[in-house]
């Protein structure tokens, strides 16, 4: 069976500096991946390459068995979604229009059908933005814009969603709600997620697999249970981590008290 996404021998550099060397990655249905690594290690760049926005210097990306670069734009949007790190409210859109844009790749009509509008409204409901549908997107707060863009991703509903720091700017309650929603909508449905995150505790708790980027071209992939441990991650992240046993499982946290 074809993987949702497969990278073969991927090389990515930035201004002459290698970020990722000879990367092999296979994302299967039902998996949830985290990319962890220090600032500037190429996490966002890798996500853009995997989404087809930037060309790798070498290597191949297959989407359900088809080379990514041979797919027309609409077909790509059908297979892959991407939440960019920086939100963009667009030029003078209402929030509902921003969310409706997620349905573009599947659109058959020039106008918006009642079904499309209902889907967009349902996605807004799921992210707790029901009352903001008619508001200008430019007036949203950072966290609200983030949630509106996640709602757009739900409308797009790709088999694989790539999210660059999806919980950025969300308050604690929203972080938990949104993460639960993403899991239900992508992982439990045998779709897949690939998240850039900074919090190893989050990665440990919700992901099945991890990709660690060192920033010098070296990388490591494997099941989260093997990679996301205090001993393994501390050197990469540059700080000590602590592990706690709780009734719900073990927790991994940054040790703010350590020097």
């Amino acid at each position, binding site marked *: 069976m074809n993987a949702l996404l497969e990278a073969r021998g991927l090389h990515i550099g930035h201004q002459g500096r290698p970020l990722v060397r000879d990367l092999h990655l296979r994302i299967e249905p039902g998996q949830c991946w985290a990319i962890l690594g220090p600032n500037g290690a190429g996490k966002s760049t890798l996500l853009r390459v995997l*989404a087809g926005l930037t060309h790798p210097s070498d290597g191949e990306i297959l989407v359900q068995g088809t080379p990514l670069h041979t797919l027309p734009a609409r077909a790509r949007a059908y297979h892959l979604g991407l939440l960019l790190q920086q939100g963009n409210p667009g*030029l003078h859109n*209402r929030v509902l229009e921003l969310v409706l844009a997620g349905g573009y790749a599947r659109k058959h009509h020039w106008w918006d059908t009642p079904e499309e509008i209902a889907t967009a409204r349902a996605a807004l409901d799921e992210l707790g933005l029901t009352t903001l549908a008619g508001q200008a997107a430019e007036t949203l707060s950072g966290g609200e814009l983030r949630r509106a863009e996640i709602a757009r991703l739900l409308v797009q509903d790709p088999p694989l969603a790539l999210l660059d720091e999806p919980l950025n700017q969300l308050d604690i309650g929203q972080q938990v709600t949104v993460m639960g929603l993403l899991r239900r909508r992508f992982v439990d449905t045998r779709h897949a997620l690939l998240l850039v995150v900074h919090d190893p505790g989050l990665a440990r708790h919700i992901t099945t697999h991890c990709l660690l980027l060192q920033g010098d071209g070296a990388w490591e992939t494997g099941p989260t249970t093997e990679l996301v441990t205090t001993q393994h991650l501390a050197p990469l992240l540059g700080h000590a981590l602590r592990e706690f046993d709780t009734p719900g499982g073990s927790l991994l946290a940054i040790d703010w008290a350590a020097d």
Partner: protein
Amino acid sequence: MRPRPEHLLTLGVVFITLVALSIALLTGSVAIPATEVARLLVQDDGSITDRIIDQLRLPRALTAFGIGGMLAVAGVLMQVLLRNPLGDPYVLGVSGGAAVAVLAAMLMGIGSLWLPPLAFSGALASMLMVFLLAQRGEDPDNRRLLLTGIVMAAGWSALIGLVLSLAPPLQLPGMLFWLMGDLGGAPRPGLALGVLAVGTAGALWLAPQLNLAGFGMAQAAVLGVDPRHLRHSLLLLSSLLTAAAVSIAGAIGFIGLVTPHLVRLLGATDHRWLVPLSALLGGNLLVLADTLARTLIAPVQLPVGVLTALLGVPIFLWLLNRDSRS
């Protein structure tokens, strides 16, 4: 169901269209009563007044409408392409290329029949140069394109200055009128309305993609728009519209810049509405400006470009202040 604001807006703009065209037909050096104008529109009697309506006022008003519409649609397209509220049909130097071709032809004494096709070729040649120069490398938000266009426009205006300083004094007024945009020449209502119809249809076809492009080309690409394809279509369509407008009436400023902003302000932000409403409103604005231009200090006719600029500057400043307050 509550009526969408766009529906009311459409009604309003259609009403304004009727009013603007009526004013244009009723105003002029010869006073013709409204009932007479209405009768002469449907019935030819060969009288002087009939010819004033059928051969002067109506063709001129329709030409103005077509050109105003083209400039407004080109402005919408440019503002999306460059993701810049300052985008207007001339920002990439299209009118400069046309002007240099036309002024050089005037200087060499080439007949006025040749000026429109020369203007058209000059505009397209300039656009092609900008496009080829900005082609290299990645340019996700078309910044490179904007800068290339602005520099080209600066180059063209230097050449315009050169031609003007070489021109014999007798030719200068004609050249200046052309530069400022003028509808006093031979009106071409059929051409103007035809190009407007085709251009608006093309822009409407692209409208769903224009909505997505507002989120940035990267985001639009992820949602299923082919950025290269969209960029090429926008450049081609906006430059054809601008070149056609410039070749008929010279470079009339501010309609392309102000109209899209006005329509957005009135409540239409979805490009499926913004494009047709801008076409109508831009047409009306130019019809009204041209009526003013030919009557304000009659019998002297002003170049309409002077009026659109004189009206456009305060309108734009007002829009700007209104934006920063909200």
